[in-house]
């Protein structure tokens, strides 16, 4: 039987920062599975994150496999080339080639990444995917999709059904098959489905039903999350309920919305619905600091949201050039203030941020190299 953790967990999405810290060109990082997985695991260990950072550029894989033109560069994460959208007009949908989830684009690379993680850690990997709405944006373009939704909703529903049934379901099944876990959590990213990019009626019609469609076909362990914009939604509680429909069991609440609405409001909602909170710390704050502000924000979140053990701290996409000392401070803050039972007055708890060696010194000490 697993023992209860003695402190709160901190995790991070830090793929760009990992590549930068390790000096690996981004175009190689996102195409060389062993380098990618090994670097991510070493960076996880260096910072002391409680969960390995295993995420790749999760918005790109399916779009690229469908034939969307991409841009690779040594200095940044691959991205969709929005000058040439795959679906220039709705009629192109009938001519799209269904990807082979074992052969198309970088789908084979994903399987290799997952297998490498399992080989290096012995732990199971996760099936990350791009949620239907964000995938539609990536191949059709945001403005086009918005206009389609308003002028040609039948096409949009046909597009989303195709993306679910012919692209995502086979890809998720292939990922699960390749890691030998048919019940693995399928974790979809859906940042595009966020106010003010969408209104809440659009979420009801085009986001929630297609997450449910995936769940109908793949079982309960399918979530889509990463939506932000609660503070811009006009009705944060309604939006949070929509997010829970996409991701039952835990509520992803991300800065700057979490900070703007206040952790108390988010916690009250989570308690009412009996769910865990994944509290995302602002990428800009993590990058720019100062350390006191990072520590203060984390302390406040733990104070308000962490006392019942139903909260984890998550560093939202760490910008590539974030100073490592900012991340060390964040980890130290969670591991100090988040010790159970949470201290009555966290302001009185002394925080010692360790003076750490550089990443290259850390590698040298371990006798590791990243070739």
């Amino acid at each position, binding site marked *: 039987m697993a023992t209860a953790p003695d402190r709160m967990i901190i995790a991070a999405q830090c793929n760009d920062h990992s590549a930068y810290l390790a000096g690996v060109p981004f175009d190689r990082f996102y195409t060389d599975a062993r380098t990618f997985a090994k670097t991510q695991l070493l960076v996880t260990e260096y910072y002391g994150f409680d969960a390995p950072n295993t995420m790749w550029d999760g918005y790109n894989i399916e779009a690229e496999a469908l034939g969307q033109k991409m841009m690779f560069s040594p200095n940044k994460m691959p*991205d*969709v080339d929005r000058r040439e959208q795959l679906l220039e007009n709705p009629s192109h949908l009938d001519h799209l080639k269904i990807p082979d989830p074992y052969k198309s684009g970088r789908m084979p690379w994903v399987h290799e990444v997952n297998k490498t993680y399992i080989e290096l850690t012995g732990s199971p990997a996760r099936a990350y995917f791009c949620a239907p709405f964000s995938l539609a944006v990536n191949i059709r*373009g945001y403005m086009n999709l918005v*206009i389609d939704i308003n002028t040609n909703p039948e096409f949009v529903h046909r597009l989303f059904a195709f993306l679910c049934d012919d692209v995502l379901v086979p890809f998720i099944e292939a990922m699960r098959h390749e890691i030998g876990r048919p019940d693995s959590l399928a974790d979809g990213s859906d940042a595009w489905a966020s106010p003010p*990019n969408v209104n809440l009626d659009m979420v009801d019609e085009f986001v929630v039903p297609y997450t449910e469609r995936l769940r109908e076909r793949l079982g309960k362990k399918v979530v889509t999350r990463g939506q932000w914009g609660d503070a*811009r939604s006009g009705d944060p509680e309604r939006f949070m309920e929509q997010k829970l429909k996409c991701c039952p069991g835990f509520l992803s609440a991300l800065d700057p919305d979490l900070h703007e609405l206040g952790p108390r409001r988010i916690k009250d909602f989570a308690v009412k619905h009996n769910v865990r909170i994944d509290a995302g710390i602002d990428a800009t704050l993590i990058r720019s600091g100062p350390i006191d502000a990072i520590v203060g924000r984390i302390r406040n979140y733990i104070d308000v949201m962490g006392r019942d053990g139903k909260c984890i701290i998550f560093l939202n996409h760490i*910008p590539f050039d974030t100073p490592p000392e900012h991340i060390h401070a964040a980890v130290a803050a969670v591991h100090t203030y988040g010790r159970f039972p949470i201290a009555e007055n966290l302001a009185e708890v002394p925080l010692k941020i360790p003076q750490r060696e550089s990443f290259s010194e850390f590698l040298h000490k371990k006798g590791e190299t990243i070739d």
Partner: protein
Amino acid sequence: MLESIYEDVVRGDLKRVTEHVKAALEAGLDVDNILNRGMIAAMDEVGRRFESGKIFVPEMIMAARAMLAGVDIMKPHLLKGKAAPLGKVVIGTVKGDLHDIGKNLVIMMLEATGFEVVDLGIDVPESRFLEAVRKHNAQLVALSGLLTTAMSEMRATAQLLNRELKKDGIREQVTVMIGGAPVTQSFADEIGADLYAPDASSAARKAKERLRKA
């Protein structure tokens, strides 16, 4: 008639905007009135509603699209008449960044507010911004970017514009504006930009206010 056009634009009803603008022109309504009291006033209202959280980006896109369709119908009349643009804006996404959605929204809102816009596209090197400002005698240059990697390019572009436009003796006549997810007012101050806009609606509003003051 003007009220109908105003309402059509606010609702983002392209079909009715085009019908009503045609009807207004046939009825001999003043072109400036159709533009300013019918459509630009409507877009001001759309901007206000967006900034106060009453509507979202999709509603703003549909409204701007409807208005621009109306402007298209009016173009021959505008060219003949005296309706001059509010000013000229050069805009682009900085080098190394391929994102254009924010930029395109800003363009829509600027055009809907009455500016003439020169779109340099995405992945624009700093020298092209400078060349375009000089070539088009722009009163405003807008730098967009979504990635954190874009921030250093934005800084370099702002510094080049500040330095070279000062040498040209026209720095005071050109407003440098920045926007995009990773940037803030304090970053704008730090790199010597004149304006920061958190979204497309406020970009158009601030540009208009700034040029009015000038």
